[in-house]
């Protein structure tokens, strides 16, 4: 969800960040290492956010500053992030890839409130990172639709020439959006390693970044829908585990297809019904040349 919101902001400003999976991995390994050394979850999440921001700074410089292909740069950074995270995970005599966690994230609400039937587990059983994600999603909605900044981001993503003509610096808005997106993706990666999996392993994200990318496009760049979609996709991943636990006679390999198949259906549905849709950032993927106006 963090990664999804981050990608959504970046894409709304017209930059397609394909390195999101690699950024999450870098965030994941950084977060886990920092949690391991300091024992502090907060420091881990912050360090991961910084690492993610640094990764996307490269993308911002190249894709926005130098206007080179967003797709090639993104894919290059993706491969770079995958390799580097895996490399740092294996360094040393006692690499962090084989270490148990020294800290964990506790549920936010303690006491009886999480025991309320049905609503309890859904609403009150999570840790502060999950609630933070909800807050950030609403914040992103407010940012994009209720503030001048949001207007600028959307303008830059839809019609950069007009935005530039009305005094908005396309380069700055795009760069900042990409940086914010990278920071959020890094945080998401750290939540995976420190909070959910409670270990670091190669390729930990296992396509979560790509799913986030797909969801952003499937919900046509609308933040509140993204929140709903993240729930549905989370549930579809859980569905595989649950069916296995109750002993349903379905192969786990086929079950693991569900979220991806769901993403395809969602993207197709969104694309097929998008004729009256106006949310699409039309300049997505296109560099903007100030000198060529």
């Amino acid at each position: 969800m963090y990664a999804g919101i981050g990608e959504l902001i970046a894409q709304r400003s017209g930059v397609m960040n394909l390195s999101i999976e690699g950024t999450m991995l870098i965030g994941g390994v950084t977060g886990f290492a920092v949690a391991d050394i300091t024992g502090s979850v907060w420091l881990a999440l912050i360090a991961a956010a910084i690492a993610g921001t640094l990764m996307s700074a490269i993308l911002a410089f190249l894709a926005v500053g130098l206007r080179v292909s967003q797709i090639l740069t993104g894919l290059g950074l993706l491969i770079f992030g995958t390799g580097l995270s895996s490399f740092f995970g294996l360094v040393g005599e006692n690499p962090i890839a084989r270490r148990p966690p020294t800290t964990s994230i506790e549920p936010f609400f303690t006491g009886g409130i999480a025991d309320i039937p049905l609503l309890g587990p859904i609403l009150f059983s999570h840790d502060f990172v999950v609630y933070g994600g909800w807050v950030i999603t609403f914040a992103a909605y407010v940012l994009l639709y209720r503030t001048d900044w949001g207007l600028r981001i959307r303008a830059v993503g839809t019609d950069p020439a007009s935005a530039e003509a009305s005094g908005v610096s396309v380069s700055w808005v795009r760069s900042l959006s990409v940086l914010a997106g990278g920071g959020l993706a890094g945080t998401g990666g750290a939540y995976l390693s420190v909070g959910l999996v409670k270990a670091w392993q190669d390729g930990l994200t296992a396509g979560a970044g790509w799913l986030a990318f797909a969801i952003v496009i499937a919900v046509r760049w609308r933040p509140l829908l993204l929140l709903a979609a993240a729930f549905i996709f989370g549930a579809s991943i859980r569905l595989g585990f649950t069916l296995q636990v109750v002993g349903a006679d379905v192969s786990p390999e086929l079950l693991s297809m569900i979220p991806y198949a769901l993403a395809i259906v969602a993207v197709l549905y969104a694309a097929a019904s998008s004729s009256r849709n106006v949310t699409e950032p039309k300049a997505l993927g296109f560099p903007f040349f100030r000198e060529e106006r």
Partner: protein
Amino acid sequence: MILPSNLAVEKKVAPSLWFSASLPILSVLASLVLAAVPLLLVGESPLEVYRVMAKASAGSVAALTDTLTEATPILLTGLAAVIAFRAKVWNIGAEGQLLVGAIAAAGVGLVLPEGTSPLIAIIGMMLSGVVAGAVFASLAAVPLATWNANEIVMTLMLNFIALSFVNYLIWGSSSLWRDDGFAAFPRGKLIPEVFRLPELTGRLNAGFVIAVLAAVVFAWFMRFTTWGYEYSVVGDSRTTARYAGIGERRIVISTFLLSGAAAGLAGAVLISGTVGGLEPRSLAVGIGFSGILAAGLGRMSPLGLIPAAAFVSALASTGPDLQRIGVAPPITIALQGLILVVVAAGQFFLEYRVVIISKDVPELQGKEGAPSTTPS
């Protein structure tokens, strides 16, 4: 990012030929320098690491033929990337198309009776790989042409689905492809030995010739046929293509299918060549992404791709030797990513120059940017 106010960027009239040709080499050198940073951070000597890598990939005849052998599928997925990317069709799904091509080719190899003429069997396997790759690509190509559905997402998700499906065939079911001889560790059933591509020297097999031929044929096709011409126009400018009455939709779909076919052929060549059976651990190793890297390094030229694929394969194959000297092998993956980033960045210096605008003199002073600088 914003440039200082006295700097501006202007388009070069024509990229310098010398620079254009040396860009891949400069990029590789710059990436090697950049990758030294993480190596130094963990206390390894970059020079020693690079020496071991060079020796492992090109230090002997055996190492060299191994490198070319591993380059074969990368050349074909690289061709898939070149074909698609030149037309600005972003097929990131070579990985999945390769797997589906491998399923089809292995299926044909296993179904045909062993007495079939090897030539016919091999041709059959190659054709089935090509067709399967193209059909799998059509799952993303048709929605792209019909609804403008984002092909990057579609092909990526299809990659995951193809991989899950291969895993299912081998681990989750008792399918035709599975070798039940190893119940605890199921693996892909091997096709009959006579259906394997003949070896040329060492492990290098005829698949390499097929891959090089495919690249040359596409280069010829692009230059000398009507389709090739329309294809280039669509790649350069969709608007121009539309005004010229070129069926954009037709070109986009055919490009996508051709791209998928090349990736599917890579799967078939692997099955009939080095791998021999539908073995997920040998097939799903990121060959699709290596292909994109080779395409970038070969500057999207089908012929430049040939040396580029050999280089990418050399990089990727040095892992075991690095392990031996105690360096974590994933550094080669990080290095591959860096190279792709730097090559992409080099494109900027190829097409533009940074000029200093002097405030009182209206004339522009040309000043070329250093080609190898990039932030790390």
